[in-house]
């Protein structure tokens, strides 16, 4: 789709799955991922008028990441108790808790979810989305050197958690 401006319906239809996967890896749970995608699609709809044809997935990643970071900031301003119906946020995933990921994938997802948000964001944008360091720096408004440090430290923490 590079080179032309897609319609919002095309984005929702053809990139919804991509957006959802990124949102899930960023947020760590299905409920929040779902909400993130809803908000991201709203912003996509508003932003398509000014979208410059290029890497659509990089643009979408930036949008869903900004939605995620906005939500993180909002929760920090207004901390709330973890809701009792979301026990998976507190506990390691149990067998059958998530049919889409099993075994090792569960362990990796759990370790990823437990990374500090700033490390998780950098690692997801690099290793799940496949953005370059410069694209990540642009997406989260930090210097490239900070991106490099966060990715490396995130990976080291992840590796430690997986031992």
């Amino acid at each position, binding site marked *: 789709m590079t080179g032309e401006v897609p319609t919002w319906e095309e984005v929702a239809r053809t990139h919804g*799955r991509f957006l*959802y996967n990124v949102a899930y890896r960023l947020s760590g749970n*299905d409920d929040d991922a779902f909400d993130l995608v809803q908000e991201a699609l709203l912003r996509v709809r508003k932003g398509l008028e000014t979208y410059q044809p290029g890497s659509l997935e990089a643009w979408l990643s930036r949008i869903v990441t900004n939605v995620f970071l906005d939500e993180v900031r909002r929760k920090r301003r207004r901390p709330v108790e973890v809701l009792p119906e979301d026990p998976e946020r507190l506990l390691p995933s149990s067998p059958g808790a998530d049919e889409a990921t099993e075994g090792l994938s569960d362990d990796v997802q759990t370790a990823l979810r437990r990374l500090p948000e700033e490390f998780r964001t950098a690692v997801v944008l690099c290793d799940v989305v496949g953005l370059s360091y410069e694209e990540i720096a642009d997406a989260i408004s930090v210097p490239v050197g900070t991106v490099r440090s966060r990715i490396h430290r995130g990976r080291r923490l992840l*590796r430690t958690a997986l031992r």
Partner: protein
Amino acid sequence: MIPSGGYPRTPRHTGPGGQHLDDTLSAYLDDELAPAARHEAEAHLAGCVDCRAELDEVAAARRAIRILPVHATARPLVGIGPFVGHPRAPGAVRPATSRRRAVWALAAAVAAAIAVVLPRDPQVAPSLPSLADSHAARASITGDPLTQLAPIAVPVRFGP
């Protein structure tokens, strides 16, 4: 969220080939180094056991994330799905934020647009089960989340 004292950093100290590579290792794995820096890193790695071990560690973490399967959802991503059939415990209802209201507004706008092209004044209301079946079947065939908006757009009149 950052613990007091910050997260542990890779200790920096000078080895036989200069400073340990630290986060240069990830940049090396990601092919983010300029050619000269890459050659320097490779020269250091050739003589530094610690950095080779750390390279293996971060490479394993990198690989583990990259082979994660795409995580999908069966719920429609566009439309009325997010807050339907998704029970929360009593008393734990999230506050209606402007974001959620905006989502509903968008869903309503899309539904209204779809309603324009659908029959406006049906003489006989379809039964709810048949309506649900037809839309579930259509959605399962097309895989198109947008079609799942259709049920709320049909002007239904029940009874005589």
